[in-house]
């Protein structure tokens, strides 16, 4: 993958940067529409989306971290945002216990300042970043993403952060960097369950370079207009909305660029259940349960039928082309 840097000469566009024919055609149609004067009506609906867009209320628990509404395609779903209380009391963060109520109870011990994130591996600019500098690296955006857990439940979370691509461009990966590995905090002094035999610590996740560069892949510092609560992965975490939640590492301390596919935490623990890609896919079941449907936390009542899970968690239009030609049953 080619990354634009100051000292590069002429660069060919990556295939992902070339406008697909369908989208190109849509633009032509839009121009035609404008020419016929029908655009007024069509654009009213578009403008309406913004007007109707929900204002996310700040819970008023932590320091404010405002973000401008993101302009990235698909980055702002119109679905009802999950209650802050549910989003912060029902978490998987095994460093603080395996029960979903454990992280909220136990994560107060996590120390988030000072905090650094080391950039290592196949990059031109290896460096240890202080969290304060990372926060300022790019403009903070608000993105409302669906979050689908591999366990069959989902939420809608208003994250605050910026595309991971912004950081990747700054650190300039070498041509040989094919994967990005995310190593998360594993401090037995502040994380009581580090050392339990459930997983290999530290918790490690990884993405293919093109996945990491996708604009929807978010380096997140906050949610609901405030800094991240500890149980949600303070002070900095990843959010990859088209993959099962466990792919989005919490409390990241190291980002390493590698040429080989890294072994990830859940893949090491149970390779037959958790693949490297772990894209949300209603057609590929987990060995112990179906992935065809999900329960939206706080919304689908006890007696409501579960809702259908969408391919790539509903982000197929944005990320489907990353997996063109791949057998997703094999590469689960």
């Amino acid at each position, binding site marked *: 993958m080619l990354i634009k840097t100051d000292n590069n000469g002429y660069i060919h566009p990556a295939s992902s940067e070339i406008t697909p024919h369908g989208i190109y055609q849509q633009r032509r149609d839009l121009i035609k529409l404008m020419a016929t004067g029908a655009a007024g009506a069509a654009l009213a609906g578009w403008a309406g989306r913004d007007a109707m867009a929900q204002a996310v209320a700040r819970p008023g628990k932590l320091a404010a971290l405002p973000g401008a509404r993101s302009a990235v395609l698909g980055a702002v779903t119109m679905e009802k945002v999950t209650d802050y*209380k*549910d989003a912060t*009391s*029902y978490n998987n963060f095994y460093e603080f216990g*395996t029960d*979903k*109520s454990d992280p909220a109870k136990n994560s107060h011990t996590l120390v988030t300042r000072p905090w650094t994130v080391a950039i290592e591996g196949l990059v031109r600019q290896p460096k240890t970043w202080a969290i304060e500098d990372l926060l300022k690296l790019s403009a903070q955006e608000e993105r409302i993403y669906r979050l689908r857990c591999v366990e069959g*439940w989902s939420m809608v979370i208003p994250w605050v952060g910026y595309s991971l691509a912004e950081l990747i461009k700054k650190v300039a990966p070498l041509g040989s960097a094919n994967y990005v590995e995310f190593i998360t905090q594993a401090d037995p002094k502040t994380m009581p369950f580090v050392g339990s*035999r*459930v*997983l290999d610590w530290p918790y490690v996740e990884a993405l293919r370079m093109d996945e990491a560069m996708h604009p929807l892949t978010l380096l997140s510092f906050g949610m609901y207009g405030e800094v991240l609560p500890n149980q949600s992965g303070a002070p900095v975490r990843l959010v990859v909305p088209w993959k099962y939640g466990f792919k989005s590492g919490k409390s990241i301390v190291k980002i390493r660029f590698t040429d080989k596919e890294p072994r990830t935490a859940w893949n090491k*623990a*149970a390779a037959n*259940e958790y693949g490297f890609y772990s894209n949300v896919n209603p057609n590929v*079941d*987990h*060995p*112990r*349960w*179906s992935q065809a449907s999900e*329960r939206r*936390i*706080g919304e689908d009542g*006890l*007696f409501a*039928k*579960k809702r259908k899970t969408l391919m790539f968690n509903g982000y197929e239009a944005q990320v489907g082309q990353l997996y063109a030609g791949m057998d997703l049953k094999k590469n689960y």
Partner: protein
Amino acid sequence: MTPAKALMHPRAKSLVFVLALLPFVWLIYGALTDRLGANPAEYLIRAGGDWSLRFLCITLAVTPLRALTGTPALARFRRMLGLFVYFYVVLHFLSYSWFDRGFDLGEIAKDIAKRPFILVGFAGFVLLSPLAATSFNAAVKKMGARRWQMLHKLVYLIAGLGILHFFWMRAGKNDFAEVFVYAAVIALLLGWRLQQFLKRKRLPSMIGRRNGLSKQ
């Protein structure tokens, strides 16, 4: 009042009944007042499974406790406790069928066929049904004590299935701490029975004289 007398008290059975019903009352109350956390469906399904295993352990503990402490009065509670195992198993299965599968029989059947851990749990439920159905006195009479007892020995197999079901369910997360606690309790309770059985085989006359009360 001595403990033995308390156990024989006419109200003792009602008291145990009410106590055994408390988890159920709490679950209903919690569901109605939104106190079961962010995912009440999951909470109910898991609580049903947990209480099934707990009552299974309590029921299996009755006979060893009775023999070891010499309190025959404990036997009065065994049938009711056993029926509570079935009650919570049914609750567990119904909440799974309803909240997880939306009572779609095709979906449930597919799930049972496809997933070993569900198959094992379901098998336990099916095997437990005839035990619950033959729990009244007339059934014992009609079947004859021997055959009745043979049938009810199935509970040992059911206990194994229950543990396996729980083990498999937790296997994906390598999270066996709780599983091991239940497995250890059940192993202890079944181990005691095995030991008694072997003793009886070796020394039939002695056991018969010393321990005439605990034949089952």
